[in-house]
């Protein structure tokens, strides 16, 4: 690590402080030789002298920063955090800080940034459960939809037309998983946490924010409904979406299919997800 010779006297200590929060080997290096660590970052001798007695406090800052981030990840991704376990999650946060660190000023959005960074790594790591990235994606779906600035838009009041795209509530998301990571409903309708890992089973979940209760609702979709929704969310006209969905599934577009999809679209309309044909 060589300091930037053009850095101002004010910039140097700020950068060193941020590095203490983020660099992976900072705890070990600072513990071993704080003055040397500061010198390597260009901190002036008089500033090094002031900082030198505060090795423990500098690392307390780091602990507080990392703990806060870990806390919000645990809050939004509790099942994922439980699968990882505290030591592994602590390590993941440390590597996340070193490689990227949060960019969002919105604290609630940190789990999404963390997940976008972590999911590809988790998918590639044989030692981790294969469903972990799907599970985390599904857990984050709730926070994502609950807080989405979009949603609740007025309906276009235009009848559905085959040559037009449809208007969907802005909070609507479709997620596809290789594992059944969603919690099944119990007898009372509330989700239950089943014993054992999720089954390997292609799964599609439509999520939206209810326009009256403002709660997140999840629908498990059939392959046909998922194929249609994927295309509608991409902005395809209704007819193109229906035709494309059949092609995706290598299925005939017959009366049974059309009747089934008509029923599905009617259900989305009653739920306030489908708001009519798009005006533009």
């Amino acid at each position: 690590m060589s300091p930037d010779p053009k850095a101002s006297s004010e910039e140097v200590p700020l950068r060193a402080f941020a590095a203490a929060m983020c660099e992976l080997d900072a705890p070990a290096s600072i513990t071993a030789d704080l003055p040397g660590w500061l010198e390597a970052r260009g901190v002036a001798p008089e500033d090094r002298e002031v900082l030198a007695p505060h090795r423990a406090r500098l690392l307390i800052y780091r602990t507080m920063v990392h703990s806060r981030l870990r806390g919000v990840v645990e809050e939004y991704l509790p099942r994922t955090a439980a699968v990882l376990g505290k030591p592994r999650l602590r390590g993941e946060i440390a590597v996340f800080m070193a490689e990227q660190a949060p960019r969002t000023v919105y604290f609630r959005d940190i789990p999404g940034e963390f997940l976008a960074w972590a999911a590809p790594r988790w998918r590639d790591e044989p030692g981790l459960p294969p469903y972990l990235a799907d599970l985390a994606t599904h857990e984050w779906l709730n926070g994502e939809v609950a807080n989405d600035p979009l949603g609740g838009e007025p309906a276009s009041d235009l009848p559905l037309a085959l040559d037009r795209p449809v208007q969907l509530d802005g909070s609507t998301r479709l997620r596809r998983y290789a594992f059944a990571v969603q919690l099944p409903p119990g007898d009372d309708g509330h989700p239950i946490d089943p014993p054992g890992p999720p089954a390997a089973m292609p799964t599609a979940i439509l999520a939206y924010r209810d326009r009256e209760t403002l709660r997140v609702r999840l629908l498990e979709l059939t392959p046909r409904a998922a194929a249609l929704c994927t295309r509608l969310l991409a902005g395809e006209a209704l007819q193109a979406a229906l035709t494309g969905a059949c092609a995706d599934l290598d299925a005939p577009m017959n009366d049974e299919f059309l009747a089934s999809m008509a029923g599905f679209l009617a259900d989305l309309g009653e739920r306030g997800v489908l708001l009519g044909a798009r005006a533009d």
Partner: protein
Amino acid sequence: MRSSGPDNIPTGVGLGLRGSFAAQIDAGEADGRVPFFEISPENHMRRGGAGPARLARIAGRFPIVTHGLAMSLGGLEPFDPEYFAQLRPFLDRVDNTRTRWHSDHLCFCGVDGQALHDLLPVPFTAASARRIAARVREAADRLERPMAVENISYYVPLGKPVIDEPEFITELLERADCSLLLDVNNVFVNAQNHGFDPQQWLAKIPLERVVQLHVAGHEFWDDSENLIIDTHGAPVRTEVDALLAWVIERVGPVPVLFEWDSNIPELPVLLAERDRLQSVYDAALIRRSAADVT
């Protein structure tokens, strides 16, 4: 309870609106007991769902004061225009007090686009004061409203101080021509951790620029480091009560925020602690009036 001063500015001891009890506030459980609520815009702006509707209902019943967490006034990089594009209309919408000011912290929050979500210290130098003052002015211009800045608690001095913290704050306030949100708990925490007299510290800052106060509880990190952390997770200590009273006797009625952000107790406990602080505040105002009379 006197709840507002001139120009409809709320006075007395208010609370930070937190998610753990916002539904109870919405349901009326604090009606008539809290003169104002303070919110952090970053927790509410660019957000849909239940939160905005609830905030609008609460703002219909209580004055709302805004206090940001993410401006990084001490940061090195230019301000994020998107953040200000979100913040400005949010403040215009939510400000129902005509306090007009928006506050944030004298700290930096990361470098190179990081948002570390902590209030990190800045060097106490004249150059730093000048640079941050220019950023405070820029923030006020971008928001088209006055800024107030808050003194933070810091556990490590960021290099050799060229001037002391009161001189740093005074220089910055004068150059930025802005107001001070004085956190008396932070003064106490810093005094304990860095070994200075908090009242001497307070006597050196321009109290005429104080528009709002913060008080909070704090906790020891552990026995080995003998370090107090500004956790906002405990009742306010009597020493901090005394500092609060000392300042109120000198600045008069202002909004005082009681912060409790971690290990938040049940609402009745929170309200009881607020009531206790309100009595400290009221007693200080009485002493101030008596001193004026005599």
